[in-house]
């Protein structure tokens, strides 16, 4: 079991308030991603749950039990760090066995569990190596191995993939998702990468300046963002925003259109613009179009051959225009 509840959690470092007041309910077995720009408090929130930081006020419950004042060792959670944080003086085997040794498990059980974890993570032939003799991806697997052997109530991941190269990152992303499907243990995953958030999460917590902007499933966030911040943060490329007279036509302070929700024409349409840059990805072409309301990003299909200086006309899909009031709240 591994449900995690935050009740009015507040965290300040001296005068600086990092997390003003957060309440969250994470269900057992859920894969929850904390996402937000750097400095939004997502890592701090994870460290509060881990017990590596003390809350200033509020309560944290694990399976209904108050663990606010429990040290990390007593919470039964496992964490995977961005830097992997392997013990450099121990072999891979000893790294993975360490939490079991701390739990004073009999040696025979430790051996069995380490072998099992190593097999699951394809680390079998590396067990006697030191971490420095491993590649980044292998180190990350050892870190995950060390987390899974103790069968924790929940896994906490702190930007675990950001030190890996792009190809490996996609691989590990899949592996972690598969691991979750296999173990069905609660996972909390911190990232600044909204693609990771969208692809892995059951539910996403979007954080900004220590506040929860929205908590929902990836598609909920994509389709019904609660405010301009979430609308701009979720989705790649970012949503285009238009203020002023054009927004006033819709009776709101600002409107937003996602790059994929435009119809493109060379002859007619309400928004006229000039192609600034055309980024051809093969499957898609991203057009950066200069219009009267500013620079717009438009997703066209990969066969389009627009180039710098071409004049095009954009028609936003009327059913998919997002409307925001002056405070940025979605209407």
């Amino acid at each position, binding site marked *: 079991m591994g449900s995690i509840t935050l009740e009015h959690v507040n965290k300040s470092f001296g005068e600086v308030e990092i997390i003003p007041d957060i309440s969250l309910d994470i269900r057992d077995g859920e894969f929850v991603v904390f996402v937000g720009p750097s400095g939004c408090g997502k890592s701090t929130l994870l460290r509060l749950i881990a017990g590596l930081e003390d809350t200033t006020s509020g309560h944290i419950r694990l399976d209904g039990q108050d663990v606010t004042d429990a040290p990390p*060792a007593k919470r039964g959670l496992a964490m995977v760090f961005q830097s992997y944080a392997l013990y450099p003086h121990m072999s891979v085997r000893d790294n993975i066995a360490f939490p079991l040794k701390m739990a004073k498990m009999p040696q025979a059980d430790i051996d069995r569990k380490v072998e099992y974890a190593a097999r699951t993570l394809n680390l079998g032939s590396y067990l006697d190596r030191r971490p420095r003799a491993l590649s980044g991806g292998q180190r990350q697997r050892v870190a995950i191995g060390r987390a899974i052997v103790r069968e924790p109530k929940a896994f906490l991941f702190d930007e675990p993939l950001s030190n890996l190269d792009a190809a490996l990152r996609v691989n590990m992303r899949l592996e972690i998702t598969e691991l979750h499907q296999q173990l069905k243990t609660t996972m909390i995953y911190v990232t600044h990468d909204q693609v990771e958030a969208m692809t892995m999460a059951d539910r996403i917590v979007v954080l900004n300046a220590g506040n929860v902007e929205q908590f929902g499933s990836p598609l909920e966030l994509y389709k019904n963002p609660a405010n301009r911040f979430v609308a701009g943060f979720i989705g790649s490329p970012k949503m285009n925003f238009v203020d002023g007279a054009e927004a006033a036509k819709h009776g709101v302070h600002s409107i937003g259109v996602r790059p994929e929700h435009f119809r493109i024409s060379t002859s007619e349409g309400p928004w006229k613009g000039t192609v600034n840059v055309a980024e051809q990805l093969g499957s898609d072409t991203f057009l950066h179009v200069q219009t009267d309301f500013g620079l717009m990003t438009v997703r066209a299909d990969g066969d389009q051959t627009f180039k710098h200086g071409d004049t095009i006309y954009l028609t936003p899909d009327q059913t998919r225009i997002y409307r925001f009031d002056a405070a940025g709240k979605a209407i």
Partner: protein
Amino acid sequence: MARRVPVQTRIGFTILAWAIALLLFSPILWTLVTAFKTEAEAIASPPTFLPQTWTLDNFGAVQDRSDYVKHATNSIIVSVGSTLLGLLIAIPAAWSMAFAPSKRTKDILMWMLSTKMMPAVGVLIPIYLIFRDLRLLDTVHGLTLIMTLINLPIIIWMLYTYFKEIPVDILEAARMDGAELWNEIRHVLVPMAVPGIASTLLLNVILAWNEAFWTITLTSGRAGTLTAFISSFSSPQGLFLAKLSAASLLAIAPILLLGWFSQKQLVRGLTFGAVK
């Protein structure tokens, strides 16, 4: 690309380096050869460099007059004992300063170091009186205690600098893995800081071995270490340069050998973390 240094410059620097090294080594070399001279030759003018007749008499005389083995044993107990005791106190202290600092940590570190800036003689009288009242005068454990205390600031400072180089993530990982404080220090911090701890240990053994002020003032016959042993030969009763040299040689030989064999470890420890 490697930097190119002209041959003449290289030769020049090599000669300079050798000259400086010889200059620094010359007192020890002089002591070494004098220890094998007769007393008459040791004070001869003009002096001879190598002994005319090599003799081992000085070593025998030194052992006859004062008990070398006893003094050496005291030296070993005091230097190793005070270093181990110091590490036992300093490791947790440096851990808390490096990984759980408070607003005052920097001040405490500076204050500790400042105690080393005061001349030892400044506290001679209070310490002497305390030692007298606690019956610690001329005892090996009393001397070990004072040696621990005078070197503690250096031990803590050195360990603090080494510990600061250890990524805190790794200690946090240990905490997440269920390690209580003691296990975190024993299984993770100490093994990772071994080069630093080893060089701290070596340096403090050397410092305690060579310490003379407190040894000479707080001990006499029973608890004297090798520094007291040497000083007993530089008495005003007469000039026994050859015997003094023999005594000095016997006193510094063990620590010189230790330093020689642990050179690599010492240098590695002293530059630990300088290059990641």
